[in-house]
């Protein structure tokens, strides 16, 4: 009979949910600075509020949530927090922010290779054909482009509906609602994909914690972001 001593330690609930972080003593590298992590989580919380309150305005079956207009107030507050924090981050770290935005637009032949090899990798786990990746891999760059593109669309159409309702024509208003909801659909699908890849996908289990404490295992960094890993190693940290 097994005694209490020989029982393996129970996995903490959060580890089961998000995957385990690097084991103690394992070599880690710095992946995300603190200000980037805070930006990410402020953005994430605001996005959830925006998503839920916006959903009430899209699906009549959930229209009860929008009744009275209070969810619209939360929608506006979350929008201001989201945009405001991003602007503050940008003003506080202009160099890093611009560099970060440029990452989304740096595409090369390894990105093409990534796109070709990605299906076999993400479905079957075949790593062989995956070309070495930078700090952001091709998929992350695509997600970043979606965030920048659809995010700008949401800000522009949202501002039109909020501040310029009385100025723009009725048709321009309806088209603003249209594109706001189109952006909503795009962001919903890609957010699901984003959460899936950073929390659920069997090959990515545990990377969630890098957005929590900034550290990622060196092993993971080397296999998933070879070019970036080699660079930071060479520059000596």
């Amino acid at each position: 009979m097994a005694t209490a001593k020989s029982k393996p330690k129970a996995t903490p609930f959060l580890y089961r949910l998000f995957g385990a972080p690097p084991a103690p003593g394992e070599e880690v590298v710095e992946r995300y600075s603190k200000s980037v992590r805070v930006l990410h989580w402020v953005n994430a919380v605001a996005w959830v509020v925006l998503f839920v309150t916006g959903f009430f305005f899209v699906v009549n079956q959930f229209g009860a949530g929008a009744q009275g207009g209070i969810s619209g107030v939360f929608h506006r507050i979350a929008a201001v927090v989201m945009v405001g924090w991003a602007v503050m981050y940008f003003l506080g770290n202009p160099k890093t922010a611009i560099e970060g935005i440029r990452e989304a637009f740096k595409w090369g032949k390894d990105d093409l290779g990534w796109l070709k090899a990605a299906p076999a990798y993400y479905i079957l786990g075949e790593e062989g054909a995956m070309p070495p990746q930078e700090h952001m891999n091709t998929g992350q760059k695509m997600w970043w482009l979606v965030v920048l593109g659809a995010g700008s669309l949401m800000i522009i159409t949202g501002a039109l509906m909020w501040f310029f309702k009385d100025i723009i024509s009725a048709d321009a208003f309806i088209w603003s609602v249209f594109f706001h909801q189109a952006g909503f659909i795009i962001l919903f699908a890609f957010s699901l994909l984003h959460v899936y890849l950073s929390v659920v996908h069997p090959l990515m289990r545990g990377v969630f914690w890098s957005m929590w404490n900034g550290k990622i295992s060196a092993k993971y960094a080397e296999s998933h972001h070879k070019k970036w890993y080699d660079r930071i190693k060479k520059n000596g940290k």
Partner: protein
Amino acid sequence: MADKAILFDASKCTACRGCQVACKQWNDLPADDTTNKGTYENPLDLTANTWVRIKFTEVGDLPDLRWLFTRISCMHCTDAGCVQVCPTDALYHHEDGFVAYDRDKCSGCGYCVEACPFNVPRSGGNKITGMRKANKCTMCQDRITNGETPACVKTCPTGALKFGGRAELLAEAKSRANEIGGRVYGEAEMDGLHVLYVLADKPEVYGLPAAPKVPASVTVWQDVLKPVGWGVAALTALGLGLNYVVAKRKIKIESEGK
């Protein structure tokens, strides 16, 4: 239930505007501040607190000047843009055919204001917080569902306004239009309005749109984007679910083989 409607006979209207007052009185609507613009027409536009008004139009010149009066209010469309876009079902079709309104449900989004081809609903409230309410004629749904006529009809001294079954009123409108050599407005517009007009001239002359339509933007949004959205959501969920099932199996087998 057979559709109910209001019949407005422009040829009988004297622009006394008793209907405007009766509407305010019954619906407990405060007066709007207005300014004299050199016309008897007052107020000059609908507001969140003014749900019906008489529009004055001068056509031609003396000695052939015609002074035309038109009732401007919710037309209670069958194909109603406002009902299509309302996210909370605050605006809905009553079983009597008209566009009823449940104010408590209104979210203040203002979509109805922009989707109406007659520019009828108005919203009042705070623009910054968005805490506001749309308002428009409800055809006195509280009155007519209790066997009364709408307040504006009740007060009309010349018989220019009439309330009743839509089919009977339409027949009456046609015979009256024949009598005066005019025309009926509202029979087929927006698949049938629940406010029928007897006009002595073309609707444009009275300031009514000749061919009102739900804006194309509303149709594309409601009939194309919404189904596409559900499709995208379903495909995303399905795709990720499938990926998980396959990847989990494949990747486990691989690591076991190592």
